[in-house]
Structures are given as structure tokens and as C-alpha cells.
């Protein structure tokens, strides 16, 4: 009897944490200023939320009903395989259809790369790559 109570507490904790992350994701989609940042909130806080809720469900079936539901675990796996692809494609599509980033002083290394790519100058790209690598080396010193 005691064990069941502890298991129930753990399950409730998981599901509540999952619901909390979903709430944060929803708030983020409303509050954050542009497509990219909203995409961050929607695609990732939600991932952890789904993970927690599915884990809670899995534990519920395992402890209370003594039923090992492997499909729930597969659900977690596929969530983790597909969510980043969707987030990446949404971001890329937004950038290529010309959505501006919020705020003025944020750096944008990608813009430079696209310009070089359009002009098809390979040497410029080499120089650009060297510049970035040097920048990072200088910063880490």
C-alpha cells in the first residue's frame, strides 16, 4: 500500500512538471517577440513537457496496472527524433522568406554567408570561414 502511494506521488510530480512546461511554452509563444524566439519556446519547452507527461503515463501503467507499455517509450523516442527537425525547418523557412529578427544589435553571421553563396565566389567563402574561426579562437583566449 505504501509503495503505491509513493509511486502515485512520483507520477503526479512528473505530470505536473510536464503540464508546467507546456504552460511555459504557451506563454512563450504569446510573449516572445518574433518567429525565431517563439519557435524556441514552442518546439522545445513542449518537448520536455511531452517527455515528462509520457513518462508519468508510463509509470502509472507500470506501477498501478502492472503493464509495461513500450509504445509510450517509443512515443518519447519519436518525439525526440522529429521535434528538432520541425524546429530547424520552421526557422530556416522563416529566414529564407525574409522574416526580420527582433532587436537591432543582434549579430547575424548567416546573412553574410547567404550573400557570399548567392554571388558564388568561393574565395570569399574561404576568407569568411577563416575569419569566423579566428574570431572564435580570439574569444576563447
Amino acid at each position: 500500500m505504501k509503495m503505491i502511494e509513493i509511486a502515485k506521488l512520483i507520477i503526479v510530480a512528473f505530470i505536473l512538471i510536464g503540464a508546467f512546461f507546456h504552460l511555459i511554452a504557451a506563454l512563450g509563444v504569446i510573449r516572445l517577440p518574433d518567429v525565431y524566439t517563439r519557435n524556441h519556446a514552442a518546439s522545445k519547452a513542449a518537448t520536455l513537457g511531452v517527455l515528462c507527461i509520457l513518462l508519468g503515463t508510463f509509470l502509472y501503467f507500470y506501477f498501478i496496472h502492472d503493464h509495461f507499455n513500450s509504445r509510450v517509450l517509443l512515443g518519447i523516442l519519436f518525439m525526440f527524433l522529429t521535434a528538432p527537425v520541425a524546429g530547424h525547418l520552421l526557422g530556416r523557412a522563416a529566414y529564407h522568406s525574409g522574416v526580420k529578427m527582433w532587436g537591432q544589435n543582434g549579430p547575424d553571421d548567416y546573412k553574410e554567408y547567404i550573400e557570399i553563396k548567392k554571388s558564388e565566389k568561393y574565395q570569399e567563402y574561404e576568407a569568411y570561414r577563416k575569419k569566423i574561426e579566428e574570431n572564435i579562437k580570439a574569444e576563447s583566449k
Partner: protein
Amino acid sequence: MAKQVLLNVFLGFMWMFLTTTYEPVAFVKGYIFGLLIIFVFRKFFDSRFYLYRVFSFIKLALIFIKELIMANIAVVKVVLKPKMDMTPGIFAYPTSLEKDWEITTLANLITLTPGTMVIDISEDKKILFVHAIDIKDAKAEIDGIKESFEKAIMEVSRT
């Protein structure tokens, strides 16, 4: 690696037939003994003992879970802050990984940890373009990715 796994499965079946028990348990037993044999003879294979690779994969998964939780807390902070004072931006991240699956894994891991999202990869597969929700600590983020994910992925793919 594939050679070693195949040999191990073969040894598992060998154990089954030698003991003339045809149950899954016997196969598992044989597999474990086979593992032991391969471990003893690990110097004679051209790649490293494949269990090391499995271990480093588990390590990668653990690092990823840790990063996922830490980064989620960071995003919660950003979302709940009353004043929006972060500066989103895109930074270039030169990677030293070479194989396609390594870069895919790295990109997926970066995208899954909140606060960073891969927008694109340069055509020669050397630079990842990462959108960060708060660019202020981009340098720290680059170092973090290098230290945690890239190292762990390299450890997995090392032969």
C-alpha cells in the same frame, strides 16, 4: 564494430547449441560469455571493443538529458522575465565533426536544447548557423557545445 557484434551473436547461438537449451535465456547467457571472450581478444580486432562505444553513447545520452533540463530552466527564466531585454541573434559555429551522421546528431542536439536552434549548415558542412535566444553569452554557448556535445559525439564515433 559490426563484425564484433556478428561474432558475438554467433557465439551466443554457439552456446545455445553446445548446451542444447533452446531458450532466450540461454542465448543471453551465451551472449554475455561471448562478450567476455571478445573483451579478452580485443587487441586482435581492427576496431576498438564495441562495448566502449555503447558506454560512450550512454554517456552522450546522459549529457544530453542534463543539458536539456538546464537549458529548459534558462528558457523558463527568459519567458517569465517581466522585461524582454535579451538580444536574439545568429552566430556561426565551426564544427570539427566530419561524417554526415555526426553533424546531424550535433545539429539535432543543439536544436533540442532550448535557447539554441540550428538554422542552416554551410555547403561544405563546416559551419553551423545557430540562432540563439540570447546572444550575450554566445561565446559561452560555443564553448559549452564544444565541451559537451562535440566531445561526446567524437568519443562515440572513434574507431
